């Protein structure tokens, strides 16, 4: 079956997730949609599978325009999607999940469903017990169940979103052989959404590469892996020259930490960060960086291990204790975690300025707000509600709220959603803090950013971490390979 996407565009507020994307999928082949986090892959596939609708553009199925306003529409047109998180109902059995979503009368015909189910498990060699409860299955087995469910609905195009995250090597091999067989023997179209280059090279015939919402290239596979990396990450910002850090006392010292992310357990995590050091955390979303950084600020209790701040054991201390020790945390979602919608800039300062008095010194808050927003170049008035600021100004304002003297600053995606100029401004401010001795640990999906600003890089992949001590030798391309698991 042939599916054609024509000029698909989709925006979420200011973020243009997809811009004018046109591509064609032929039957009997396996495609890859490649791109780094936030490139727009998942959005495009959700549009194709009817989960979201595009702002503009058309979808042609076998040269006929198709309106896909719900996943059931897509399935009627033969397009089924396997989501990153399996969409099953854990309290039910495998067979009940298999039946769910099937067209049929009020009373499901479970005997026929069971026969269909067993026929499919036999064909693919899946060892699934139809009467087992889903919550005891592994992620890989739940995927198998979901694939069979989609196949039983006569899907001709199968979209898989990051299917190899969190499954074992054998399950991956089994999955790939099934997918190859479906493409070769049944003439199905398989679309793999991934940023794992290894998987793409191993499985796919053809790759489309997205970057920042645009289709930036396509390649027939096999091809050199470096070609795909270059397409995925684009140009590379040159690393800035700056004085090397002379390591003094460690500000943050982490030993043998264990954190549990959505699907992965990250173990044996150790790191020392000293004054004026900038550590970038690289890795795919959900590789444990977010949990790690939250553990270092008292927001996430680690399973195991020791966290020291300024040499003091603070492993299970509260967030407020970390704050008192000079640790600040700036999360990625500015309006959700960090700023308070409906409060003015002055109210934010009145809330955060240290004071022992039980009342608010509004004059002081007003004055400090004026000074700080001028210093941080925030375009807004002290009386503006914070949500009226634009994204870059919100980020600068969030930075201006941080206490002046900090030992350690932890940031998530400090420049996400900002244009180059705003991002540079944020980093100027951060590097000024670094010059004053503040240690900085940040998560970013922009590899250029990590390479450009870090004095050390911690790469998270598949439940383990690798420390790159000398990032001067590192390029975004090499880093891209590392976070894709190619060591």
């Amino acid at each position, binding site marked *: 079956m042939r599916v054609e996407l024509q000029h698909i565009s989709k925006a979420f507020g200011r973020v243009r997730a997809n811009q004018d994307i046109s591509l064609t999928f032929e039957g009997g082949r396996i495609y890859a949609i490649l791109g780094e986090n936030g490139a727009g892959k998942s959005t495009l596939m959700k549009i194709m599978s009817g989960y979201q609708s595009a702002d503009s553009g058309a979808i042609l199925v076998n040269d006929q325009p198709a309106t896909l306003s719900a996943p059931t529409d897509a399935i009627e047109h033969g397009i089924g999607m396997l989501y990153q998180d399996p969409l099953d109902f854990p309290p039910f059995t495998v067979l009940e999940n298999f039946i769910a979503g099937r067209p049929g009368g009020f009373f499901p015909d479970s005997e026929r469903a069971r026969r269909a189910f067993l026929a499919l498990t036999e064909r693919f060699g899946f060892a699934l017990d139809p009467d087992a409860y889903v919550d005891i299955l592994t992620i890989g087995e739940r995927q198998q169940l979901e694939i069979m469910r989609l196949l039983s609905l006569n899907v001709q195009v199968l979209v898989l979103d990051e299917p190899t995250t969190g499954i074992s090597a054998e399950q991956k091999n089994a999955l790939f052989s099934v997918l190859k067989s479906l493409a070769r023997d049944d003439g199905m179209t398989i679309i793999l959404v991934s940023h794992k280059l290894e998987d793409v090279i191993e499985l796919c015939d053809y790759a489309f590469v997205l970057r920042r919402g645009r289709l930036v290239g396509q390649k027939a596979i096999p091809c050199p892996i470096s070609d795909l990396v270059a397409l995925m990450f684009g140009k590379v910002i040159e690393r800035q020259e700056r004085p090397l850090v002379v390591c003094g006392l460690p500000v943050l010292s982490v030993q043998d930490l264990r954190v549990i992310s959505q699907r992965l357990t990250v173990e044996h995590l150790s790191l020392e960060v000293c004054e004026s050091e900038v550590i970038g955390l690289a890795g795919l979303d959900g590789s444990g960086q977010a949990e790690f950084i939250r553990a270092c600020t008292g927001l996430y209790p680690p399973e195991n291990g020791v966290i020291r701040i300024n040499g003091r054991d603070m492993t299970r201390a509260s967030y407020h204790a970390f704050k008192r020790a000079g640790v600040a945390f700036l999360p990625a979602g500015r309006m959700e975690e960090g700023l308070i919608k409906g409060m003015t800039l002055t109210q934010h300062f009145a809330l955060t300025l240290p004071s022992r008095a*039980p009342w608010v010194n509004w004059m002081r808050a007003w004055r400090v707000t004026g000074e700080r927003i001028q210093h941080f170049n925030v375009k807004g008035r002290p009386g503006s509600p914070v949500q009226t600021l634009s994204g870059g100004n919100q980020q600068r304002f969030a930075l201006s709220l941080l206490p002046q003297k900090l030992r350690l600053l932890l940031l998530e995606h400090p420049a996400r959603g900002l244009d180059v100029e705003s991002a540079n401004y944020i980093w100027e401010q951060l590097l000024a803090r670094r010059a004053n001795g503040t240690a900085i640990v940040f998560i970013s999906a922009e590899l250029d950013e990590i390479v450009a600003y870090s004095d050390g890089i911690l790469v998270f992949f598949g439940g383990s971490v690798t420390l790159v001590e000398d990032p001067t030798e590192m390029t975004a391309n090499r880093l891209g390979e590392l976070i894709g698991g190619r060591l």
Partner: protein
Amino acid sequence: MAPTIRQRPSSSARTGATWRYVLDLLPAILAPFFGIAAALLIIVLILEWQGADPQVAWDYVYEGTLESAAKRADLVAFWMPLAVASFGLVLTYTAGLWNIGVEGQIMMGAIGATWAVRLFAESSSPPLGLRLGRDGILFMCFVFAALTGALWAFLAGVLKTRGGVNEIFSGVALNFIAQTFNMYLISNGGPWQPPGSRATETARFPENARLPSFEEYRRLSPTTIYITIGAFVVVALIMYVSRWGLQLRAQGKNRKSAFLLGVRTDRNTLLAMAACGSMAGLAGAFRVLAPDVTKLTATPSGGIGFLAILVVLLASMSAILTPFVSFVFAVLSKGGQRLESGFQWDHDLLLDRSLVRVLQSTIVLMVVLAFGARNRFFPPHSAQPAVDDEDVDRT
């Protein structure tokens, strides 16, 4: 003093922005009025449809509440506990805490006040040998009421912060427990039911445990007025002057952000609940110590807790508006009682008395609906045109 900003927008643009701001505010200000107008219209229609004269109905409400000085005194006596409970709720609702348990807290306050009466006024051997005069006894009543109410609210707070139980659910449960506990005390030979009595109430409190009242208006006590004014001042100071009030506002708008900005949200939750509970407890004390009651009855709160929740929601959690809104509700409630008897006896009205509840609810519903309509059709501009637009992602 306006701090300098780099790019000062042109003055015309600024006037435009100010004008837009006023236009944005208008629907918010007008919403309750539209709601009340719509409610009155519907009420008139219902009454006409039932063949009753709306004018006569209003006369009953007026006569029952505002016509004579005595009625006005009764109205104030009803208004005070309602107002003091509403002030407490301003704190919790500002902090985003749906303190449904306020009804139970009022009841526990009533029980606490009664307990103090039993300990200090009725017992022959008061604790610590304290033989208090009337002022001392009443003082202990209010302290006990505030503490028991605070404790009841604190429980809901602990369940929320430590146990992760939503305060709405724990509030419903604690209301039920308070009601049951009250019934245990005063019915079926319960420990506080006078021996030989079959009425579900305690004996009347002794003379030295009754609130002083005005000479002409025996049912109204000046003490409740003073305490209510005091509570209002405290809540207004918290809300408009203190850092704590600002923290409550912040965590009510975004608990997570407030926490990350350094607000101790759990501690504030407990404190706000306890503060509200103590005021609810005082309301309970007002109800049992009222000069025309002076006993613990089966329904010591009379539903003013739920009424207070509506008051605070309609006042949009504004401490300044709360006294006025609670007054309106007091009129509706007292007037409704008079109207009910009118429905029963007056041949011009002869309607089912439950219609009063329908009419009262209509007003609440329409005002809430007006707020909803405002949010739906005139959403507050979440992003009014920012001063600049340079940060739009250009990629």
